[in-house]
């Protein structure tokens, strides 16, 4: 049994694979005690091998776990997950808790090029979380709420703090809050498309990471991009899944 664990800035995902099949997957908030969250997720399972990815990968590698721990970056993990589960995909977009990554894949799944946002978390899951908070609703309701807007209002600043100021001043002008929410989502989509174009947009595109659960961001991207645009059923599990697949490949290459 191989465990892939993706310790991101906001959430931790676990995928257990045994005999080539996913036997269990689960997620939890990262919190400030990621290790105890990992143990909770494992829930007594004893894998033969753990592959860790995400921001906390080295933390796990430096901890005495029940099994040997290897690490790969989330870029490689997502690329691996995407190329095995969706082999036709050429461009992979991953918007997580505090990073946006665009990865371009060659046939066969190797990473050809990637880009990652700079140190600022603008336009990521954290941005949506903050804005949902401003709108006084849980983040999972924020996307559907924004879809109720009819005309996106222009939000020009990508910085979370400045964008909030813009949103508040639009509110003070008496605009429909759903249109403001739609505008905030549109600003994420704009920034994401610019990044996709910088790396080089080759179809089909796969959209993964926690933000791919937001139906408004998905819709806006879909409308703006030509050609096939895929979203996995569990878009935030792809990294953990890729990490587990890496573990399997390693085992295989060792015994081969």
């Amino acid at each position, binding site marked *: 049994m191989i465990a892939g664990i993706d310790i991101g800035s906001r959430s931790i995902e676990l995928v257990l694979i045994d005999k080539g099949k996913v036997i269990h997957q689960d997620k939890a908030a990262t919190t400030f005690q990621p290790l105890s969250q990992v143990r909770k997720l494992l829930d007594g399972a004893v894998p033969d091998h753990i592959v860790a990815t995400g*921001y906390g990968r080295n933390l796990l590698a430096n901890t005495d776990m029940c099994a040997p721990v290897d690490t790969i*970056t*989330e870029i490689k993990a997502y690329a691996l997950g995407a190329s095995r589960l969706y082999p036709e995909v050429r461009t992979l977009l991953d918007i997580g808790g505090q990073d946006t990554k665009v990865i371009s894949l060659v046939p066969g799944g*190797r*990473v*050809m*090029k*990637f880009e990652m946002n700079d*140190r600022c978390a603008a336009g990521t899951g954290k941005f949506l979380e903050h804005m949902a908070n401003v709108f006084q609703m849980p983040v999972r309701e924020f996307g559907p709420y924004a879809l109720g807007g009819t005309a996106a209002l222009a939000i020009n600043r990508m910085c979370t703090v400045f964008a909030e100021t813009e949103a508040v001043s639009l509110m003070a002008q008496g605009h429909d809050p759903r249109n403001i929410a739609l505008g905030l989502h549109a600003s994420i989509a704009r920034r994401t498309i610019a990044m996709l174009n910088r790396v080089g947009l080759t179809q089909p595109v796969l959209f993964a990471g926690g933000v791919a659960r937001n139906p408004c961001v998905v819709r806006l991207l879909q409308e703006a991009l030509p050609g096939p645009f895929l979203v996995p059923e569990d878009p935030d599990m792809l990294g953990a899944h890729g990490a587990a697949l890496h573990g399997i490949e390693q085992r295989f290459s060792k015994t081969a």
Partner: protein
Amino acid sequence: MANEQYHEMWEKLNLDLPAHDGLLEVLGKFYGDIYMSQDGRLKGMEYLDFVLSEVHGLRIKELQDTKAEGRKVIGTFCVFVPEELTLAAGAVQVGLCAGAEVGQESAEKLVPRNTCALIKSFIGFKLARICPFTESCDLVVGETTCDGKKKAYESFSDYVPMHVMEVPQQKNEADRGLWKSEVLRYKEALEKLTGNLITADSLKKAIRTVNDRRRALQRLNRLRAAVPTPISGRDVLLINQVSFYDDPVRFTQSINKLCDELEERISKNEGIVDAKTPRLMLSGCPMAVPNWKLPFVIESSGAVVVGEESCIGTRNTRDLVGESGETVEEMIDAVCDRYMKIDCACFTPNTERLDNITGMARELKADGVIHYALMFCQPYGHEALKVEKALQKADIPMLSIETDYSMEDVAQLKTRVEAFVEMVGGK
């Protein structure tokens, strides 16, 4: 490093002693983590460890002794200041502190916030009074290689005696003429400051001294290219950094000795890493002491640095001054010609840099290039885009990094660099 014995000297130099002690403590710890933790280092690196541990101590004492003998100390921030002339006038040339986040808040009173870390650093070091090199200088020589520096020197001249050389922006006949007049103006300034005339004899000797140092560093660069890599990129960067502080003759001898050791190691096919380790080349902005952040991130991500296309690297060592001149005039011309070959991003166009980078990456058998631009550095920021295109044509992958001296982005840098290493290593 905080040696009691130097306190009196530092006090005389008007350093802020508690702040300076604090800096040395941090520097010492940083050096221990990044340098002393390496396995299989060359014995010759002990000299570099020693020089660095005494960089604010013994080396400053040497400078004070030199000054007591009547020689002058010239401080610089750029490879455009012709050291040949400085030495020929009997003066000593040193690079000034500009590689750490120091006195940032006070620096921002003299330069705008969106100024690069290097400029803020040299101003911060001065305002915080913790760079004994700056405090030892009889003259600081600046240059017009970017708008940030150009304007910063105006403010800086309220604090130190400054001479600014105008570096042209193109490489036409008229630019060569301008540069020559600037070299001659520097010569005059030196002669006035030192009271020594630059003669054919003194200039010939100085040209040889500086060329010898470049030859030693060229030799090092040829040897370090071996597979498996016989010396870490961090160590080579340190050697390049120390070349700006140390006595040139002594430094050259030590590096040649280190190269002998390298040859021996290579003949035994020994490396500091496995032959299959991904080989990366750095390209872009200079990394002044103690800016070891990116090389350390790279070399702790499973790769090895095999080249530095930078002013603290090959840009400073690639070209020699022609040694056939006999008269002062001929030798000044040779100096001008050599410095006009520098492929600094301040020139437009600067296509030779693209050719140099591609050629160097091929020669070093680099698996990829990491382009490093300091945040807010316009010239290198622009060229990062051009370099990426040129390398793409040559089928060499490149990762573009923009960062500064702070440590807050290390985790993100590590993810990017590791992913790049995974990518070029085909893992």
